[in-house]
């Protein structure tokens, strides 16, 4: 792991570690928690043939929607892409390979990797097409589906605040998949609206301890797509 003393970086330098063909977990449920600035930097740097893992495909024109439109995503592992008609169209044209899991199963596959396991036993989806072809095991007189852990090379996560060791605090519903992905990926790049000196965050209020974070970058709230959504109700 990166030494604690070497984690606070410039955004271009942090994202430059990602090669073509990488698998990347991206935090966020809809807009909240989506690391828009890191995604925009990835778009600018040009990495391609990416496998993305994200709860959803954002909405057209923002977040990973931009990467999908630019043809940079080979595969998307997700739970729901209903709010991004462009992603649905790319899937239907065969240009984007989409793998769908129930949302809580996707979360737990990621958490399983993050906890250092190799999978878990579940009854979710038994009897539906979601479980078709899933490997099963009998235990305690019942059949259980085996859901393997989902790993990734990188994770891009968004936090409200951080310190330069990488301790993270999330806000409101911007937590969602971020803390899980922060544990699961080999290299974790966090963006935060504010990065302070160690000691600035309350001990008990830290959601992701710095042990999991490889790089932390500070991003301006104003340059984020946060709050500039197509869909506002």
């Amino acid at each position, binding site marked *: 792991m990166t030494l604690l003393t070497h984690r606070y970086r410039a955004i271009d330098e942090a994202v430059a570690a990602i090669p073509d063909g990488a698998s990347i977990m991206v935090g966020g*449920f*809809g*807009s*909240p*928690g989506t690391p828009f600035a890191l995604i925009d930097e990835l778009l600018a740097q040009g990495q391609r043939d990416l496998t993305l893992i994200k*709860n959803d495909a954002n909405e057209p024109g923002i977040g990973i929607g931009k990467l999908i439109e630019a043809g940079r995503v080979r595969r998307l592992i*997700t*739970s*729901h*892409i*209903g*709010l991004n008609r462009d992603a*649905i169209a790319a899937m239907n044209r065969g240009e984007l390979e*989409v793998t*769908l899991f*129930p*949302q*809580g*199963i996707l*979360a*737990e596959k990621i*958490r399983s990797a993050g906890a250092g396991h190799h999978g878990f036993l579940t*009854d*979710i*989806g038994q*009897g*539906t*097409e*979601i479980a078709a072809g899933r490997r099963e095991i009998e235990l305690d007189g019942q059949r259980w589906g085996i859901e393997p852990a989902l790993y990734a090379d990188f994770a891009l996560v968004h936090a*409200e605040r951080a310190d330069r060791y990488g301790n993270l605090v*999330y*806000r*409101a*519903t*911007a*937590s*969602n*998949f*971020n*803390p*899980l992905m922060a544990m699961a990926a080999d290299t974790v790049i966090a963006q935060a609206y504010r990065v302070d000196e160690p000691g600035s965050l309350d001990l008990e209020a830290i*959601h992701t301890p710095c042990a999991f974070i490889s790089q932390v970058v500070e991003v301006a709230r104003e340059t984020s797509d*946060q*709050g500039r*959504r197509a*869909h*506002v*109700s």
Partner: protein
Amino acid sequence: MSADQQRMLARAAREVIPGQIVNLGIGLPTQLFHYLPDELEVLVHSENGVLGCRPRAAGEVPDWDMIDSGGAYIATRPGASVFDSAMSFAMIRRSRVDVTFMGAFEVDELGNLANWKIPGKFSPGIGGAMELAQKVRRLVILCSHNDKHGNPKILERCRLPLTAERCVSRIVTDKAVMDVTPEGLTVVDIAEGLSVAELREATEAELIVDENRLGRF
């Protein structure tokens, strides 16, 4: 919103007991929000990671970090908490949600539910619906009795891919309130002005009706 929908929502709101934890699915169920006043002490769960949602008051500035699972900007009430997706679905799978309201493409006599996929036409992913349907203590379906072409949605057997098997407790439509029972679909309430014969005509499933015990809504 149509008068029928308002009537359905008012009826559905009566399913909620003060002190319960409630999840509201995307679409019409979300509107139940407005039928649950603060003094009920009901906490609304949204699977993106919040317990204790309330609708924004008129003129209340949106908080860009605070949405429900449908993407609407919401606010919170006293006793609310926020958390990650693993925690949110742990609550669901551990049946800590007392009652969930969901829409449906099809429901059947056995309580099977189909509401996520129309093969070849609509398959954006199941989101959180499967775990909610399978694990909630009480699942109430809130949907129109017939589709826009007039075809029945309350079937003998679902034909679309299932969200979950034998998961539905009660169905609230514009035409009736029905319980899934071991004997079959039992009509609890029928819409004002509708006859039992008209209700049967609009329904594929067999309906059990005890006219003496039938409520109106």
